[in-house]
């Protein structure tokens, strides 16, 4: 039916003796919300790092729209419209909230060193557009009123939202969210769920890592359960919830 946007093939990553990801196979359909769940240290973040080029796979391939992107530099991958957020929030603390999001517009604008040096910003149309776009995305995640604060002075939860706004500003084809709801309270988690669904509606594929089961079960099209670096089960939320292996390894009860 729909095309496959991302495919992990026999992916493997070990750090010395520690095998973080092992023989991992996963396919992500375009326009879907795919969640990865699993115990702590299962290798979820490592998979994100492999996809986005922060780590090089020890073996296996990562196919993005049928081209192999494994081993490319992070910024090259970002330019292919793959956005991500970090589990350990990574904002640019000295810059204002708005500027943080404008950095997200980096791949959607062009002016290089020469133009930047020679043309003052108020003469650059691109810059103005970036600014309005960034404001839009900030409103989108509900941080519009904080746009002039420095990012470092936001509380942790708000920094997490800021990260998402920055990722969205890239207008990505696929966005990888690493525990977006951690640090959000129940109500905001629901808002986050809505937001993710809205993202999907914009035709952005979402890959989600999250420990909040209600959120995951609520919005996912497909769930992959990861344990010890392997994908031990995939399926839709209902299937996963009733899978005994998953219950034993992760969900409890």
């Amino acid at each position, binding site marked *: 039916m729909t095309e496959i946007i991302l495919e992990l093939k026999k992916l493997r990553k070990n750090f010395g003796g520690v095998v973080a990801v092992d023989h991992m196979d996963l396919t992500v359909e375009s326009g879907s919300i795919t969640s990865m769940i699993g115990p702590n240290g299962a290798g979820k973040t490592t998979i994100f790092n492999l996809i986005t080029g922060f780590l090089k796979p020890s073996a296996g391939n990562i196919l993005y729209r049928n081209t192999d992107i494994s081993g490319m530099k992070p910024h090259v991958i970002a330019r292919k419209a793959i956005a991500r957020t970090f589990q350990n929030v990574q904002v640019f603390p000295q810059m204002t909230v708005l500027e943080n999001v404008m950095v997200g517009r980096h791949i959607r604008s062009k002016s290089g060193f020469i133009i930047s040096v020679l043309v003052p910003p108020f003469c650059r149309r691109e810059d103005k557009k970036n600014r309005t776009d960034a404001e839009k995305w900030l409103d989108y995640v509900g941080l519009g009123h904080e746009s002039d604060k420095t990012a470092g002075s936001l509380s*942790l939860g708000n920094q997490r939202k800021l990260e998402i706004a920055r990722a969205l500003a890239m207008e990505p084809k696929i966005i990888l969210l690493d525990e977006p709801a951690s640090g959000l309270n129940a109500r905001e988690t629901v808002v986050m769920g809505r937001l993710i669904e809205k993202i999907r509606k914009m035709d952005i594929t979402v890959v989600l890592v999250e420990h909040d089961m209600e959120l995951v079960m609520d919005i996912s099209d497909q769930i992959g359960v990861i344990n010890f670096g392997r994908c031990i089960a995939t399926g839709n939320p209902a299937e996963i919830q009733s899978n005994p292996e998953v219950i034993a390894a992760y969900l409890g009860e």
Partner: protein
Amino acid sequence: MLRLVNVNSYFNLVHVLKNLSLHVNKGEIVTLIGANGAGKTTTLRSISSLHPVKGGRIYFNDLDITHLRTEKLVKMGIAQVPEGRQIFWPMTVRDNLELGGYLTFKTDGKKALRAGIDRMYELFPILRERKRQYAGTLSGGEQQMLAIAMALMAKPDLLLLDEPSMGLAPLIVKEIFRVILELREQIGLTVLLVEQNASSALKIADRGYVIETGKIIIEAQASALLENQEVKRAYLGRDKRKMWE
């Protein structure tokens, strides 16, 4: 046991905590809930003297501790699991745990330290597996476990927990809450808990406070808060999704 009276805190000119007062009795588990940016973290940091208090007093066992230094407070028995996994990144897991038990080591010696570390390994078996790994290379959840373990190593009387469940798998969260309850039973541990996962926090807590833009707006028994309409709407909203939409 712990009492905050009209505490005020600032970031430069931004007034973050406004005349905040709360108390925690001995052996109690009290939870502090509130939206992002409400000032929960700042409250805990102010108690531990990691953030300067301007105006107001903080008492611990009826002693004025407002301007005491952090390490003094730890010595007096106040430990904190800080927000954002504050561990020693370029040190091994074992070194981290040893440092967590710095005071134990100073007072009770090496043996007690070892025993404490072994106890933490039992609690979080994965840490034992990773003991020679640099703490910074742990997964997010593992780091969180380490941070909690480090605080427990200090053998506190009062434990300040800042979002301990962040990034932890549901099974582990349950385990941690269980341990907290157990410690209260065993050694009469007192806990001030900040949690986003308010419903589970309220389930184990005795009392709760709701904080909004640096002010306490509600104080009540945990069970009462669980039923409170306003609280439900703002912080527990999940199943009442339709309500606010």
